[in-house]
């Protein structure tokens, strides 16, 4: 039997993440048995606060605090087993092949280094001139108004949106195979957001980059991604193609879409409220 099964870029099977909480007795389970794959496509994870989506991203990247417990049946990135890797080998993967855009760019940037110098760190093995040219090129690609000024500026001199874009430039520059973005456009103004998303789309298409896009905004994810995973209480409640979002079956997914105020179609009365069913907490894949 020579059936060659294509290895997905990221394969997650039965992932569990829990934190020990000393103020409350016992542990807090943030992710409770999540399984999915990401290939050269845009996969969106939608969830509210407490759904576990950020913990999931950090578990894949190995960025959880040492007190967190992570276990899974399978957690692999392009045939590398991420579970067995120690910190040193994870560092060789992160940056070059596994990119990460954290939620709060301002605190993710080093406050005592210029932005240009930080982004240039991603260009290893290049001469200083070549690195600077590459960085300026990247800053233009993320639609910075004045790339030269940003090159020499410190993070506190830039606005929140500019820091976010600098972070995106830094992450995309080495051309990772898989990009995990945690609310990358939440700090951006709307017209900049469109351009950044377009840039990420280009990279996915042209360079075959995989994208795991985490957001609380279901309309954004529906418009931008190819597939959507809806998370609630540490589990995936529904997994569907973005184009099928309107036909979503789970009441939580439908609730998320109906409770947001709409600009063009007005509601006369109060907004529909999401009635949480405690049964949802027990649903989803319950892999041991």
């Amino acid at each position, binding site marked *: 039997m020579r059936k060659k099964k294509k290895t997905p870029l990221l394969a997650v099977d039965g992932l569990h993440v829990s934190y020990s909480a*000393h103020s*409350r007795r016992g542990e807090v389970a*943030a992710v409770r048995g999540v399984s999915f794959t990401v290939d050269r496509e845009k996969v969106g994870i939608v969830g509210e606060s407490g759904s576990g989506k950020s913990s999931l991203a950090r578990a894949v990247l190995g960025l959880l605090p040492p007190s967190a417990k992570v276990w899974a049946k399978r957690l692999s990135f392009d045939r590398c087993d991420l579970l067995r890797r120690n910190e040193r080998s994870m560092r060789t993967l992160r940056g070059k092949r596994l990119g990460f855009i954290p939620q709060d760019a301002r605190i993710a940037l080093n406050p005592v280094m210029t932005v240009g110098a930080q982004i240039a760190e991603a260009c290893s093995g290049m001469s200083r001139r070549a690195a600077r040219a590459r960085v300026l090129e990247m800053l233009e690609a993320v639609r910075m108004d004045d790339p030269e000024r940003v090159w020499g500026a410190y993070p506190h001199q830039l606005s929140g949106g500019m820091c976010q874009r600098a972070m995106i430039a830094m992450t995309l520059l080495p051309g990772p195979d898989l990009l995990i973005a945690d609310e990358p456009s939440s700090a951006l103004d709307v017209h900049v957001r469109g351009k950044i998303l377009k840039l990420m789309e280009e990279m996915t298409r042209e360079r075959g980059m995989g994208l795991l896009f985490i957001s609380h905004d279901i309309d954004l994810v529906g418009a931008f991604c190819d597939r959507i995973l809806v998370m*609630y*209480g540490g589990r995936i409640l529904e997994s569907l193609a973005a184009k099928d979002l309107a036909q979503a079956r789970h009441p939580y997914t439908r609730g998320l879409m109906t409770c947001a105020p709409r600009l063009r179609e007005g509601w006369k009365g109060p907004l529909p409220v999401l009635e949480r069913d405690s049964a949802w907490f027990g649903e989803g894949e319950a892999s041991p």
Partner: protein
Amino acid sequence: MTVSAQETLTFPASRASAGLAWLCRVWRELAANPLTLAGIMVIVGLLVMAVAAPGMTSYDPLAQDLSQRLLPPSTAHWCGTDELGRDIFARIVYGARITLRIVLLVLAVVAPAGLLVGCAAGYLGGWVDAVLMRITDIFLAFPKLILALALVAALGPGLDNAVIAIALTAWPPFARIVRARTVSLREAEFVQAARLMGAGRARIIVAHIVPLCLPPLVVRMTLEMSGIILTAAGLGFLGLGAQPPLPEWGTMISTGRAFLLDQWWVATMPGIAIFVVSLGFNLFGDGLRDVLDPKTETRV
């Protein structure tokens, strides 16, 4: 916080039980750290020694017996005797009272003073801030012991003068800490909400700023205690603090210095006492800071 955790929380039923719940939580976290617990036990030991001194030793710390001088540690005299035949263990135990008195008197003066100066400077800003902080800087510029020496020299030797001198050198760090905290709290949204309610400056400082300045202040107090003890011991060592025959630990080291080579216990025993108590306060202060750290402030 996972979604289901909300429903299982029960809330306190009254203000008193809310406060009590907070205390229990703080205690539980403190006790979880073994080093902090060790520090707490040292402090409790010090308190017990001070309070129950007569019960801990039958010897009189001031009673001289020249036939028993410079005896090494034994079952009769746990820490030996000094050059005048006094039991060293008894002197250490009674000396705990003096140490505790110095520490508490200094803190009673320094903490409110630091709070007042820091809050005023931080909240009012402008020239008030500039003037108060420059005064603070001037006091900070002097090495603590030298300044204390100068003050004691001016006031005359004695325990109470030593307390005043140490207090005058110890207040600047508190003022700074309080000022830093006040400046960050001044623009907090709950302070803005209070202003919008019509609360005056005094009310905001007393009701909002001061209570939130207390945790870093208390932490700093516990960490400063060891410094205060050492400064007092230094003054005593130089003969400027507690006067003989009071069993102040620093004075004991000073008089024991002459016998250090052959009768090491005379100077070393009080030295160990100072070391253990300073360490205890430091360990407790570190643990307290971890629990009351503003970064975890949102958890109260």
